[in-house]
């Protein structure tokens, strides 16, 4: 069980974990080109570091076949390696990002691409949470962590369990997951992640103005966020993925032993091996039960 972090540190110092979607399948079809997207994000990250000199930024790339840390403001040389006019953040990050993208592409060629072109969000979320635990362990004086998912790819239903696990762990250690989703349809995973952890879910209406959305909604520390008029939630998609076909479903059958979700009736549970008796369509309601009880 994760221990709840103590609240002894200054509440306006932030640790921002940015999960950057680099999935080539998404960016090749996006209306906002990746290079433009990056320049919005870099400006945003620079402004976060300037808002408070104790602020920290860590960037993790979420690729198609791998995930990797590509920037950490605490370990990067702050102003030393200025080659030309670019700030240190940009040059460090861009260099690592390029290495990452090349490697990710290499892996992609090795494995045959099949199924949905989703990116490995569960991997980068898990890494970010491990990093945040390290910050919690560092003592009572640590910055307030939050996670920002800059995601464009559609959800990968095969990651359902892993993503939910990450969401619950974030919730237990009170880390909000913010999401800025650039894809064409809403992401049910990110809607749930932000809803459950108390973060903000935003789908920019005009991707060209990304920087504006980022700075107005996601730049303020968690304490000052209370003063903002945050975007109203447009609902949360609570659909689940069935375990048998990884399909997203809104009604399904649940194994009473292990709570696995299936899209249709099976004779045997593929997860726990239980053999099912005759189909029982619904749980008898508690009101019925009460009625019966008072009759006897």
């Amino acid at each position: 069980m994760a221990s709840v972090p103590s609240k002894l540190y200054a509440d306006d110092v932030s640790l921002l974990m940015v999960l950057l979607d680099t999935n080539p399948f998404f960016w090749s079809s996006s209306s906002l080109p990746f290079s433009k997207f990056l320049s919005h994000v870099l400006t945003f990250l620079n402004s976060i570091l300037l808002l408070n000199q104790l602020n920290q930024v860590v960037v993790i790339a979420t690729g198609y076949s791998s995930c990797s840390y590509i920037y950490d403001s605490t370990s990067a040389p702050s102003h030393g390696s200025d080659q030309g006019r670019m700030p240190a953040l940009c040059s460090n990050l861009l260099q690592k990002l390029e290495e990452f993208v090349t490697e990710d592409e290499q892996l992609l060629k090795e494995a045959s691409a099949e199924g949905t072109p989703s990116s490995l969000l569960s991997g980068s979320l898990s890494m970010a949470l491990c990093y945040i635990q390290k910050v919690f362990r560092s003592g009572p004086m640590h910055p307030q962590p939050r996670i920002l998912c800059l995601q464009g790819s559609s959800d990968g239903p095969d990651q359902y369990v892993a993503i939910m696990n990450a969401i619950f762990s974030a919730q237990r250690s009170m880390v909000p997951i913010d999401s800025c989703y650039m894809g064409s349809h809403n992401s049910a995973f990110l809607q749930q992640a932000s809803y459950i952890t108390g973060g903000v879910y935003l789908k920019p209406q005009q991707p060209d103005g990304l920087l504006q959305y980022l700075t107005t909604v996601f730049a303020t520390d968690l304490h000052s966020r209370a003063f903002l008029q945050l975007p109203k939630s447009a609902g949360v998609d609570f659909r689940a993925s069935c375990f048998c076909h990884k399909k997203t479903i809104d009604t399904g059958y649940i194994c009473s032993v292990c709570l696995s979700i299936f899209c249709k009736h099976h004779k045997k549970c593929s997860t726990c091996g239980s053999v099912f008796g005759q189909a029982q369509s619904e749980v008898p309601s508690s009101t019925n039960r009460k009625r019966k009880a008072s009759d006897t």
Partner: protein
Amino acid sequence: MNNGDQRRLNGELEEDEEDEENNDGLAAWERAYADERSWESLQEDESGLLRPIDNQSLQHAQYRRRLRAASTTRIQKGLIRYLYIVIDLSKAASEMDFRPSRMGVVAKHVEAFIREYFYQNPLSQVGLVTIKDGVAHILTDLGGSPESHVKALMGKLECSGDASLQNALDLVQGYLNQIPSYGHREVLIMYSALSTCDPGDIMETIQKCKKSKIRCSVIGLSAEIFICKHLCQETGGSYYIALDESHLKDLILEHAPPPPAIAEFAIANLIKMGFPQRAAESSVAICSCHKEAKVGDGYTCPRCKARVCELPTECRICGLTLISSPHLARSYHHLFPIVPFDEVSLSLFIDQQNKLPKACFGCQQSLLGPGNKPGLHVSCPKCKQHFCLDCDIYIHESLHNCPGCDSTRHSKIPTANEG
């Protein structure tokens, strides 16, 4: 199992005696410091400075033992539970050997238990029963909302008269007999009294409980009583006596994780359920439960599109059981446990020091110990990534994901076909 219980009970009694010898003649407030022994966790380093003992590796060894024990148990858990908590409010519960009183301590920990229970057992229900003046009362019906139970319990904390185990069991058995066959029926009794004042033959009642497949467990606050032990043995429950408050807390929280599913106790079944969408904050609709127009905050039944205010519930219009899918997903880590990580042997290091990663894959912490020598760490047998000991514990006990496996596409096996 019963032998194990016995041994454990004895072990704890011995420990208790030792403690009493050590603490001889100390007042209660002094004992608190004696137990902590903060000076013993200091150690002298090379330069003669006092430092806290590095018990990280020790702790880690303990954790690994725990993990191994857990990974050998099967994944079939009784996840849908119907549990009655019976609280003894006879005059024995006013004894002050626990501070402020047995009753107060029990109430405090039952509250914490109820919250933890609902966290770990989605779809499960709890009901509260009290015994006082020789009769048993239903305090709350079986239900899924922790708040209502806690509120009812805190409002009814008075004790008087005798305790009657038989009346309590009869009452609870009558209710639990009506729950669906796939549910696990359980009773947890917090028993303060040293006797039971029964109207009839309690042995018959115990047999009735056994026949209804109700697992009865008792946590005693005074001393072992034969009838409680007999009850637990007959129905497959556990019986422990709490030695002090922290022991009581541990004992009661042991009942929070789902128990292993026993096929004969509950029949597996497929239950049809719907996962409603949460409506947009600005939308207006008339809810089917209160028949009121409401702005935002509500869920839409996927079958008939009726609006309901709360989950879990049953659609008033089409009768479909509606639950929130994240509620279910909380228990999925039981189904797909992360394999224990292997300790990276230090001898391996010397051979291929250059090839091994220098930082933890999860948190980027350096894996090098003092003097740039490789420190103790672990690696995942599936993805071969290396992790620090802290991440190892966090990954297995809270996160339930391996960051390495989740960041690799080809080695990823579809989760449903595992297990």
